[in-house]
């Protein structure tokens, strides 16, 4: 087996591990270890790692899970993510999580925090209001205070005596991760044929349940694999994929888009991993450093209030230019409020800048790709025909 295949297989196995067996193995290695989950889009997982717990992203069951109880809890007009999360939750498959953080992504995730409280009274459940006001005089103290609070409670849960020290280490670890992700994303932007998005996605997905150090090794292997086995360029157009920041599309959808002739050169898949753009300062109070990083360097995302109307109007243009893309694929989960309410504004901005766009909706368990194939294929053809000039 090639190195690339080995890395991808490993990552795929982690993504498919709905019972979190690899988390359980990690827990069993040292008695007393604990793991804490967090929901999309962004939760400061440094806080979890700081107290010695393993941060685990909770992303539902994708297309690998039959849903019964999840549908018993959600009406048909709600997105799919919470169904599969509840299905896993009620089957006890997430019981290895001693704590779960629910960032203020949307009302679905918010209410899910209450469901968790009802169903698992023994678990530490915390709803985390992200700082919606990015004005530093208001946002920094608020977010610092929120994180202080959570860090304190997690430390107590984990029996950790020096959470701040732990946090400093965690920040350093995840700074390395952030840097590595930037390398990977830049590489894909420059040579998308080397890094199919489906692979990048799996690699990032692995980061959602591996300790930072372990993931650094895995991603290093991947980087050497692409050096050893570079891909061959194809005559594809280049697109930014946006709207898929929470409920994740099935792998088949990503593959379909790329096979239909559209290289994805920027995306917001698992965006929490890249929420903070710059490195977090390792000087001074670590909680405040983390808070400042959010206020000053977080990427724009539909779940955070945009204070500047022009910011919203120009966002897609900026992203397209940075990625040297030809067009935009708006791909949102069905019934996803943040993505779908934002779409008309983002799209208007993009179209005003003359950027070609297509839009569709998916669910994490969509099993049919023909319509996407057709749309993406036509899009790519039309860009190649008309867009080059």
């Amino acid at each position: 087996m090639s190195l690339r295949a080995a890395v991808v297989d490993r990552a795929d196995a982690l993504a498919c591990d709905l019972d979190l067996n690899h988390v359980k193995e990690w827990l069993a290695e040292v008695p007393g270890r604990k793991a804490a989950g967090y929901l999309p889009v962004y939760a400061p997982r440094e806080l979890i790692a700081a107290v010695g717990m393993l941060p685990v992203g909770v992303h539902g069951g994708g297309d690998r899970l039959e849903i019964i109880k999840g549908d018993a809890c959600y009406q048909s007009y709600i997105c799919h993510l919470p169904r599969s999360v509840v299905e896993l939750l009620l089957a006890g498959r997430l019981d290895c999580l001693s704590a779960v953080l629910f960032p203020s992504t949307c009302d679905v995730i918010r209410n899910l925090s209450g469901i968790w409280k009802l169903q698992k009274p023994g678990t530490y459940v915390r709803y985390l209001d992200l700082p919606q006001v990015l004005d530093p005089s208001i946002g920094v103290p608020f977010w610092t205070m929120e994180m202080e609070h959570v860090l304190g409670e997690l430390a107590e849960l984990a029996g950790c005596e020096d959470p701040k020290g732990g946090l400093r280490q965690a920040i350093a670890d995840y700074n390395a991760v952030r840097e590595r992700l930037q390398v990977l994303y830049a590489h894909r932007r420059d040579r998308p044929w080397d890094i199919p998005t489906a692979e990048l996605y799996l690699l990032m997905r692995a980061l959602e349940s591996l300790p930072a150090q372990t993931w650094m090794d895995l991603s290093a292997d991947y980087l050497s694999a692409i050096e050893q086995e570079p891909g061959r360029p194809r005559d594809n157009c280049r697109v930014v994929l946006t709207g898929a920041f929470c409920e994740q599309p099935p792998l088949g959808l990503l593959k379909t888009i790329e096979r239909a002739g559209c290289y994805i050169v920027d995306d917001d898949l698992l965006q929490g991993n890249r929420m903070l753009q710059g490195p977090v300062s390792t000087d001074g109070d670590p909680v405040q450093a983390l808070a400042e990083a959010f206020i000053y360097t977080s990427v724009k995302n539909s779940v955070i209030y945009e204070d500047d109307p022009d910011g919203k109007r120009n966002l897609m243009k900026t992203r397209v230019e940075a990625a040297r893309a030809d067009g935009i694929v708006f791909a949102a989960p069905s019934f996803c409020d943040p993505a779908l309410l934002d779409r008309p504004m983002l799209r208007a901005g993009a179209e005003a800048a003359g950027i070609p766009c297509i839009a569709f909706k998916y669910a994490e368990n969509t099993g049919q790709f023909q319509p996407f194939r057709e749309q993406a294929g036509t899009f790519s053809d039309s860009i190649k025909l008309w867009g080059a000039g």
Partner: protein
Amino acid sequence: MDCFIGIDLGSTTTKAVMLDSHGEVLGRGITNSRSDYDRAAEVAKTEAIITARFNLLRREVEKVAGTELLEQLLEAFRLEQLLVQLGRLEELIHDEIGGGVSPDLQGAAREGVEHIFRKIRHEEDARFNANDRRRRSDFFRDIVGSAYFRLAEEIGNEGGASFDLLLSLYDKCIILVENEPLELGFHQHIDPALARIGEPPAARKGVQEAASIPLNVQSSVGTGYGRVRLPFPKENIRSEILCHGLGAHMMFPGTRSVLDIGGQDTKAIQIDASGIVTRFQMNDRCAAGCGRYLGYIADEMNIGLHELGPMASKSTRPVRINSTCTVFAGAELRERLSLGEAREDILAGLHRAVILRAMSLLARTGGVDDEFTFTGGVARNEAAVSALRQLIEENYGQRTLNISPSSIYTGALGGAVFALRGAA
């Protein structure tokens, strides 16, 4: 004798059940709902009364003459009934030829129609004489239709009136027959039927005894989709949920959970030890997961609905299907086939997907703690039943699963019990 009737006006079929004052089922009737609910209710009710008479007859005749004679009489009666309807259908078709067919085609058409009806009568006689008791559809439309089409095709092939012409005549007139009140009652047909089997004295005596028992309908309760159209006072109208629960309880007194998957909707019901509904849930706006979905699939595959189950049952490796969205049913199927997946495996996956939706509805009402009854059209589909059995076991452990061959009457039975209880 006092009796009590429940009528279930469903969107496709209308059912009636008649009880005696001890709650014993006396008779049952079923007919197509058509567009005319009043008429459908009337037909189903008449049917129920006829079968009630026969049940009384059975009690009486069996005493004196034994079952064989009774069965013969029943067949003869059905034949008489059929012949009346057949006569009326032929009459209407002739009228239609006179009024709606161009003169140059009329001759051939009449000739063809006469031939067809002659042949059908002949075949029915032969069937009776051969003592052929194989079960067939309860509907006149189905019994006559299949023979008519076959014969019309022969005529068309042999250069007589065209098949299309004969078919359109049939289509037009069968609806009229279904919507006409015909004399189908016990009293009208029992004498010719007796004559047909040679007036055996034992049977005649039994008939007289049975016929002389007055059937006094004390109370009727209506339920089902079209219930509001019934000319009943409000307190004699019950929701199909309540009737279904009670009906299932009557059939299987140990039942605590009921699942009904019909063409248009799915219901999950929990009942207590006396058949009173304690919780229920129905599917939402979306028809995914209802019987209709399987109908789309059958259409898409160009096979009969009843063939789906057997085909799916052959599967060894069911495919995982995540969506039962009716809008995408066809596309999903084509995509799967184009991926090289076997028909039976896809079908098995589709059946499981339909049942998964129903399982969620059940879970909304609290799941399956105890004995469980499955009703509705989809309960006749073996692949659906086996998917359900498996999923119930996976999720709730071993449970008794009841399916009654007469499950289609569940709602009407519940209605009749309400009529009985209400009158008490």
